[in-house]
């Protein structure tokens, strides 16, 4: 069973236990790792590596508060996490728009792809942090600078995947669409875009991960607030519990974003997921 259900049919018989067992089946590894950290790094063992309990305690205390009036988040969250999240949202949205838009054009229009291909490959291999000085000149030391850096770094994977998705459109599908005399716009919206969408989503997923990383990295320099700002300040003043608490924040954020993305993807690409499962099973 390559793609068996996680727990097999016996789970169904367990009735009300099924849910807790499923949750446990999903989180045990994370728990094992957290406990291993806790046991390994006792208080005072290492300045760099505080015990996990201290990190998680600081994480909850620094970012969250039991006050509905504050929307359950601390001022620290408001002044640092909110700007970071806004930058991430803007940067990634721009990357997605440019990546998908340009990718569709380049996927369809071969000469343009040939024209720009070396530049795309070059852009992909250039660390976007090395372009910081230019980005600062163009955007100033503002949130748009971070947004630009996030967008510049995370566009490539969307772009490349969209191009591939468009170019791998099945010839039979093209013929079928032509035989139906679909106009340009109908062909684009009803055939080309949906058929490329699994690849586009794969690119978007990769770029979301990159965007999150760049969100932090872009705030290490030239930012007046943000999670990266908190991280670097904590690091240089040797408050390692605070640094780890910010790192945990980013990790949890990554999990949440990935989960959310998965939900959206499962909805939009239902046909893809289920049709391939059906084909595999028959």
């Amino acid at each position, binding site marked *: *069973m390559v793609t*068996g259900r996680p727990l*097999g049919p016996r789970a169904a018989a367990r009735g009300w236990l099924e849910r807790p067992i499923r949750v446990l089946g999903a989180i*045990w*590894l994370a728990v*094992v*790792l957290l406990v*291993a*950290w806790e*046991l*390994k*790094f006792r208080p*005072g*063992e*290492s*300045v*760099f*590596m505080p015990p996990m309990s201290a990190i998680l305690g600081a994480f909850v205390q620094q970012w969250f508060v039991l006050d509905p009036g504050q929307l359950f988040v601390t001022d620290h969250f408001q002044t640092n996490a909110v700007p970071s999240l806004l930058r991430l949202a803007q940067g990634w949205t721009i990357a997605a728009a440019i990546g998908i838009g340009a990718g569709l054009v380049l996927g369809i229009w071969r000469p343009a792809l040939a024209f720009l291909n070396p530049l795309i490959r070059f852009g992909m291999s250039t660390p976007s942090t090395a372009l*910081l*000085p230019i980005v*600062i*000149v163009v955007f*100033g*030391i503002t949130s748009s600078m971070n947004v630009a850096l996030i967008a510049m770094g995370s566009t490539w994977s969307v772009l490349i995947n969209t191009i591939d998705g468009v170019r791998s459109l099945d010839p039979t599908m093209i013929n079928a669409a032509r035989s139906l005399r679909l106009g340009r716009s109908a062909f684009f919206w009803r055939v080309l875009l949906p058929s490329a969408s699994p690849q586009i989503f794969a690119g978007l997923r990769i770029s979301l991960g990159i965007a999150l990383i760049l969100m932090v990295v872009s705030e*290490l*320099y*030239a*930012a*007046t607030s943000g999670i990266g*700002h908190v991280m*670097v*300040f904590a*690091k*240089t*003043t*040797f*408050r*390692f519990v605070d640094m780890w608490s910010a790192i945990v924040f980013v990790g949890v954020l990554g999990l949440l974003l990935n989960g959310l993305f998965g939900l959206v993807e499962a909805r939009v690409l239902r046909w893809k997921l289920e049709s391939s499962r059906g084909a595999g099973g028959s």
Partner: protein
Amino acid sequence: MRLQSWSFVIPCILALVATACSGAPVQSASSSSPSAAATVTAQPTAAGPVAVKVTTLALCNESYLYWGMEHGIFEKHGLKVETVKTQGGSAGIAAIVSGAADFSFTNGLTAILSFNVGFPIQIVAGAYESPQPPKPPSQALFVKPDSPVKSPKDLVGKKIGVNELGGINHIVTAAWLRKLGVNPQDVNWVALPFPQIVQGVVQGRLDAGQAALANIGANDVRVLGDPFREGVNKVIFAAYLATNSFIKDHPGVSEKFQAAIAESIAAVEDPKNLDAQFALAAKNCGNDPKVLAKQPQQEYEAAIDMATMEDMGKLLIQEGYLTKAPDMTKLVPEFARKK
């Protein structure tokens, strides 16, 4: 169903691997055990000098180090220096704790902060301090010539570039603002490398910046003041740290290092060596010797003034980085103190 048996074995294996993996490197980093890593370096060879690794930021200010290496002063003291480049003083501390280096080139405030949170380190030698009057200023808080910022009070709500958040320049500039009646919290601090601070101010992307006059060079700026002279008492700009275990396992080496630094400093401060010093520094930091000759000299000092240490502790308390100053006598061993 055969998989069911696996489901118990694999977590156990993973747990074992996880603990085993993290076990190995931590040993060398922990303070209590005799440092295995430190013995890798600093091996006294039978007759020859002791090899020590010293971190460097490749600054022009480190001219005494280049001088000492070039002119055999370290060898004279029984040491063979190898430099290890790091990007910042806190990376240097991580480097000596990990055993990748023996002496870390770090500023005094960072040294106190790291000591305070429990890093097993001591200051074994000074390097240079902030010049006090009557010496000419070497640092500046500056704005564009036509900037609307006329006095430090106008900086409220503005963006000030400093090279590192929580670093010495940031802390001292904040103290300077506080002294002039501006709450440092009301200013937006931006971390940028020095050349970009200068360009940022010149191009109007930053409202103000803090950098050494050497960094500003010929750029057209208006200086509001020198936070290091007007904001605080003398601070130790750069010093050398070693770990407790290194000092214990290599008796006498730190003392020799301190003495060699002192002798090198005396050599570079000798007026007849000035031109040679600039040439040597320029070679190592990639600057023009003529430019260096025009810059104000650093206040080189290989011995640590305990009064300065106490002042720096108070500064950190004032700026909210410490609640109580650590015991400076534990941070600075007897031999490194100014007599």
